[in-house]
Every structure is written in C-alpha cells, then in structure tokens.
C-alpha cells in the first residue's frame, strides 16, 4: 500500500514529518480521513484529534490541535495548527480543573478557551478511531 507524507506544523516548530498510511483530521464540518491519493482539499479545522496511522492501520501517534488548517493533495497532507499537544500527555483531572476555572469567568476570551478545553476533554475520553 502506498504512503502519504504528513507534516504537522505549529508556529514554533515542525512537530511531525513522516510518510504514513492514514491520517484523520478534525475538519470544521466533520472529520476527514486522508489516504494516499486523496483529492486536493483545503480545510479549516476545529479543536480535536489528529490521528496518525501506519500503513498497516496501526495507530502511530495522536495529537490534540486547537484548530488550524489542513492542506491535502494526493501525495502530501499538511496540518497547520496553532497549538499541538500529544494526546497521551494530557491529564484528565487538570483539564477538568481548567474547565471549572474558565467556566466561572465570563468574557469572550475565556469562552474560547473553554470550548478548546472541552474539546480536549472529549478528545481524551472518546476512544473511536483508536482502531480503524
């Protein structure tokens, strides 16, 4: 099976750069599964999980991104994300605490952070896509 080259880039550095089998990115209107030979798409992303699989469909890495953009063409998939964390480095209790703190504040900025934190919590609790 063919591979597709995948770049995950944050403003500070290049986080992931390798040939992989499949990537799932959280598109604004729904998740996109990207396989080699995908048509050319440019999509903006919502906060959520970016899942990277090897050629034989094993999960290689999973990240949480707080939004950004994806540029996909048949040979290459590039995700530009503003903040990227590896999913298994997230801690459930600290996120819950963050949500609680943010929930008590009321301004536009904290609302945005709150929605990101909620998406984070969802990202670590759900388990679909763990196997494809």
């Amino acid at each position, binding site marked *: 099976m063919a591979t597709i080259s995948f*770049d995950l*880039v*944050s*403003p*500070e*550095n*290049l986080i992931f750069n390798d040939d992989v089998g499949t990537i799932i990115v959280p*598109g*604004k*209107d729904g998740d*996109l599964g990207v396989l080699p030979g995908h*048509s*050319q*798409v*440019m*999509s*903006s992303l919502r906060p959520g999980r970016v899942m990277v699989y090897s050629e034989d469909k094993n999960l290689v890495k999973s990240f949480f991104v707080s*939004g950004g*953009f994806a*540029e996909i*063409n048949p040979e290459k998939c*590039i995700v*530009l994300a*503003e*903040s990227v964390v590896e999913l298994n480095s997230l801690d459930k209790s600290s996120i819950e605490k963050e949500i609680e703190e943010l929930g008590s504040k009321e301004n536009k900025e904290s609302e945005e952070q709150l929605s990101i934190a909620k998406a984070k919590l969802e990202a670590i609790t759900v388990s679909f896509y763990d196997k494809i």
Partner: protein
Amino acid sequence: MPSLKDIKTQINSVGSTKKITSAMKMVAASKLRRSQEKAEAARPYSSRLEEMLSSLASSAASGEGIIKLLTGTGNDQNYIVVPVSADRGLCGGFNSSINRETFKLVKSLEGNGKKVQLMPVGKKSRDFFNRVMKDQIIESFVDLNVSSTGYESALNISNKLQELYFEGKFDKCILVFNKFKSAISQEVTQQQLIPLDVSNSEKEEEKENSSNAIYDYEPDEETILKDLLPKNVSIQIFKVLLESDAGEQGARMAAMDNATRNAGEMIDSLTLKYNRTRQAFITKELIEIISGAESI
C-alpha cells in the same frame, strides 16, 4: 601627571570591563544561535500559511468584517506604526536605528496630513517615544522574551491590533523592525501589516496557479479566509519578533566584540604609559642621587 597608582587602578578597571564585555559577547553568541534556531523552526509554518493565503487571496475582491484585513478600510488617513526594538541596550545602534527610522516615518506621514499613532514593542522604543511623542502612544508591549514565551507574545500584540482595527481606530499598520541579514548585520525594514500587502504574495500566486490544480475548500473559501487572515497577522508579528530577537543578539555580539577589542587596546596603551611613568620616576630618582653625590 597621574601617579603610578592612578594608572594601575585605571588598568584594572578597564581589565574588568573587558572581562564583562567578553562574557556578554559569549552569552550573546550562544543566544544568537538559539534565536536563529527558533526563527528557522518557525519558517515552515509561516511559508505554508503564506502559500495558502496567496492561493485564496484572489477569491476575496471586497468584503466586510474580517476580510477587511486583506482589502483595507478604503481609507488611508489613520496610521499605526509599530516599532520593534529590544528590551535591553548595549547592542550598538540596534535600538537607536529603529527609533530614528520610526521617528522619520512618523514625521513624513504627518507631513502628508495623516494621523499617526504608535504602539512600541520593547522597552527601548517605548522609553524613547515616551519622551518625544508621549500622547501618540496608545499601547506598548515590553518584556516579551519571545525566545522563551514563544507564540503567545505575538498573539497578544496581534489581538490588540485587530481589536483596534475593527473598532476603526486605524486604517493602516506599519511595522518597523530590524531584519536579520547575518550575524553581524541587520537592516531596518518597514513592513505593512494591515491591510495585507499582497504585492509580494502575488508573485507566489502566479506560481501557485500554474503549478497546482484547483483545491476543494471546506467549508468554503470565505470561511477559511476568515480563519486564515487573523492567524496570518499573528504569524507575521511572530516572525518579526523572532527576527528582531536574533538581530538583537547579533548586534550585541558585534558591539561587545568591538568593546572587548577596544578595551584590549586601551589596556595596551595604559600599560605603556604605566611603564614610561615608572621609568621616568626611576630616572628622576637616579638623577637626584647622582647630583646629590656630586655636590658632596
């Protein structure tokens, strides 16, 4: 004529200054390497973003809301100038050239009847413009430490700018910063940030159009553009901050290298003077003894 002791003290003090400057040079050199790495690491993101933007820019001829970041307000009466300087001194002409250039820019804009406001970044330009144009400063950002805090610092500035822009406080935003050319040379550069200067991305656009087939956009071009434009402002600022940071370290390294060399030269000449004075003193004593002995 200074006494021997005076010269000795002077030599010692120049010697300790030399030690400090050479230590600062070493520190600046290692910081420079780190800043350069940071600037290097940020490049893939910003170049990708620019590419995406240029392929989208054509789709927005005019519009309201966020698209204004690209198309402008249609006016050019009110300017905001953002000088980006360092927080610390002792880096040669790094800060003063920024301040001078900004001052000139502001004066020439005002000469054309425009209204100019300032938003200095970095202590050195804030302090300068606090002295000369205090009432034109609307906001200032100091102690950014872009190499340690990273993207966050750029985000603050960009959020503030966009807030002011959408309140209609200004029509055009110009950054004045030191572009990092090499470790020893920086170039004062002006860059128009808002509305986005498409003149240089247009070229890329042509390239893009010829080499790439048409993309599908999800959800649609306008939504992506709306997400992309504010991010582009932040990333441009981030890039400028990183360049300026690297430039600062480079300028400091060069300045401290010079200072160390000058201190060395000064020590040499002082040592020469010290030896001469000592010799003169000995000769004088000898003459006194001999003439004393002769008179007996």
